[in-house]
């Protein structure tokens, strides 16, 4: 039987994720469970290091990359040790070359598959779908990301919340970074505005996770439409996807999709399924830049998926992003053999998971042809 994953998520470094993970590790150990630290990143924080005392740590292994020794979690040793519960910090960490996997969350999957429960930590900006949004909010891009699905796999997600003022206080007191880095951190990332925005993102993310899990549990009670009609559940777990093309008429589709997303209080993805042989240059490039810019203004995510088939490309993204609602532009009247083909909305509905709605946005005409 696979182990259970519990993830401690926070808005930024220093909120106390690792500390809380260690606290819960101690509680589990005191209750008689076999607990071991697979990897812990103390970040030179004395309080955190002190809390790790009393918990067995599986020794790290050294990997040499381009003449530099790097310390990584020793996955084979942890699997051989086989504790009942492993504490593995920094879920989004990228492993040094030479490790079994490129990313730590892949190591965690192996540990879970071995029947070991895992506690882990992650910051909200490491979630792939939030990376652009957080970059826009804070001006800082993090390179290490994890697919949102990893968080979705967690049996429990715990938000470690702290007010921005309290976190800044901790930072000033030297509890987050060493003294020489404090002023730079306060100037660049740890501003009240940034932290407020990040806190909102983190709270929202956890609310969505909880809601998504609740919807999965409630599914046998009726279809989504029935529950919405009955007013049982509001549509918090929705995610919209608008299929766009790099042409001006897509702007209207985006406007409609964004309004719908606003009404539902949900996130919006814009997707262009690019034919593999199409070059992004000239007018196409100009329109791609315009769409990317519009997505940034709206807080939406612009995606380009390369595929020979619009339906296959869109279906893949729908599965990856957990889309529940697709919006497409009105098609031009089909010509020639295309008349024999099944209409796009039907093809989309067949290719996507059950329950994904498809809505067609009427073309106003006059510009540049339909969207599909």
């Amino acid at each position, binding site marked *: 039987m696979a182990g259970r994953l519990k993830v401690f998520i926070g808005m930024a470094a220093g909120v106390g994720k690792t500390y809380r993970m260690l606290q819960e590790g101690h509680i589990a150990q005191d209750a008689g469970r076999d607990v071991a630290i697979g990897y812990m990143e103390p970040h030179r924080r004395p309080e955190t290091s002190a809390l790790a005392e009393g918990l067995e740590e599986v020794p790290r292994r050294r990997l040499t990359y381009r003449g530099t020794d790097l310390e990584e979690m020793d996955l084979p040793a942890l699997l051989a040790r086989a504790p009942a519960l492993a504490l593995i910090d920094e879920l989004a960490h990228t492993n040094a070359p030479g490790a079994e996997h490129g990313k730590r969350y892949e190591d965690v999957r192996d540990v879970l598959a071995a029947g070991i429960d895992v506690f882990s930590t992650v910051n909200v900006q490491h979630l792939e779908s939030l990376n652009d*949004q957080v970059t*826009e*909010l*804070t*001006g800082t891009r993090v390179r290490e990301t994890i697919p949102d699905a990893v968080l979705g796999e967690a049996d429990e997600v715990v938000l470690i919340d702290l007010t921005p003022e309290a976190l800044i206080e901790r930072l000033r007191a030297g509890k987050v970074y060493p003294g020489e880095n404090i002023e730079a951190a306060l100037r660049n990332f740890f501003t009240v*505005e940034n932290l407020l*925005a990040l806190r909102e993102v983190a709270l929202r993310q956890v609310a969505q996770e909880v809601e998504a899990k609740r919807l999965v549990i409630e599914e046998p009670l009726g279809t989504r439409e029935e529950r919405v009609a009955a007013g049982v559940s509001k549509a918090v777990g929705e995610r919209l996807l608008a299929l766009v093309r790099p042409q*001006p008429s897509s*702007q*209207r589709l985006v*406007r409609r999709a*964004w*309004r719908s997303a*606003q009404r539902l209080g949900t996130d919006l993805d814009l997707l262009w399924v690019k034919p593999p042989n199409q070059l992004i240059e*000239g*007018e196409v490039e*100009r329109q791609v*830049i*315009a769409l990317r*810019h*519009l997505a*940034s*203004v*709206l*807080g939406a995510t612009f995606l380009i998926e390369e595929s020979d088939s619009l339906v296959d490309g869109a279906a893949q993204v729908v599965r990856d992003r957990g889309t529940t609602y697709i919006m497409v532009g009105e098609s031009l009247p089909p010509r020639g053999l295309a008349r024999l083909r099944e209409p796009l909305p039907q093809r989309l509905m067949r290719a996507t998971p059950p329950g994904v709605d498809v809505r067609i946005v009427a073309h*106003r*005409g*006059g*510009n*540049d042809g339909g969207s599909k």
Partner: protein
Amino acid sequence: MNVERVLIVAALFAGLAGGYLLARPRLRGRRSERPQAIHQILLPFTGTAISRRAVDAALRLARAEDATLMPAYLATVPKRLPLDCAIPAEAAKAMSMLEAIEQRATAQGVSVDSRIERGRSSRHALARLLARETFDRVVVPAAAGAGAELSGDDLAWLLEKAPAEVLILRPGPEDRRLVTSEPASSGVPG
């Protein structure tokens, strides 16, 4: 003999017609691959209303020159926020205005390619837009006191900096007639 000639002519005709039908998609493709000159008319605006005279002038020009109208909402981002942050409240205003302008443009058969540009001020947003896009003309109403237009200083700056013809519309009595995101029955003049 005559029958043979008729058959030869018919065969030639059929061959030519067949050849044309086969080649037509390729010719079309080539035609669409030709680079197109950009003919764009910029209509920058701020706020939730724009002079109908300015919109109509821009549309007349666009139709006459077979150009694309680019209505652009200039959004101001407060200094406490990053310049490239999402701006849903401003975007909501912009969306309604762009929708209203697009409706008028469509009714007149004019192509539209809308934009929302962010800046620390209207002028800053306009400068960013000018740097990003290419225009042949800029149509802008002179300040008529409604409060939402570009200021006189902004217009002077635009005349100096814009790499395109700038058409500043003199304020007129009909400037009270506005294009807004509100329905006409809601007391909006005009």
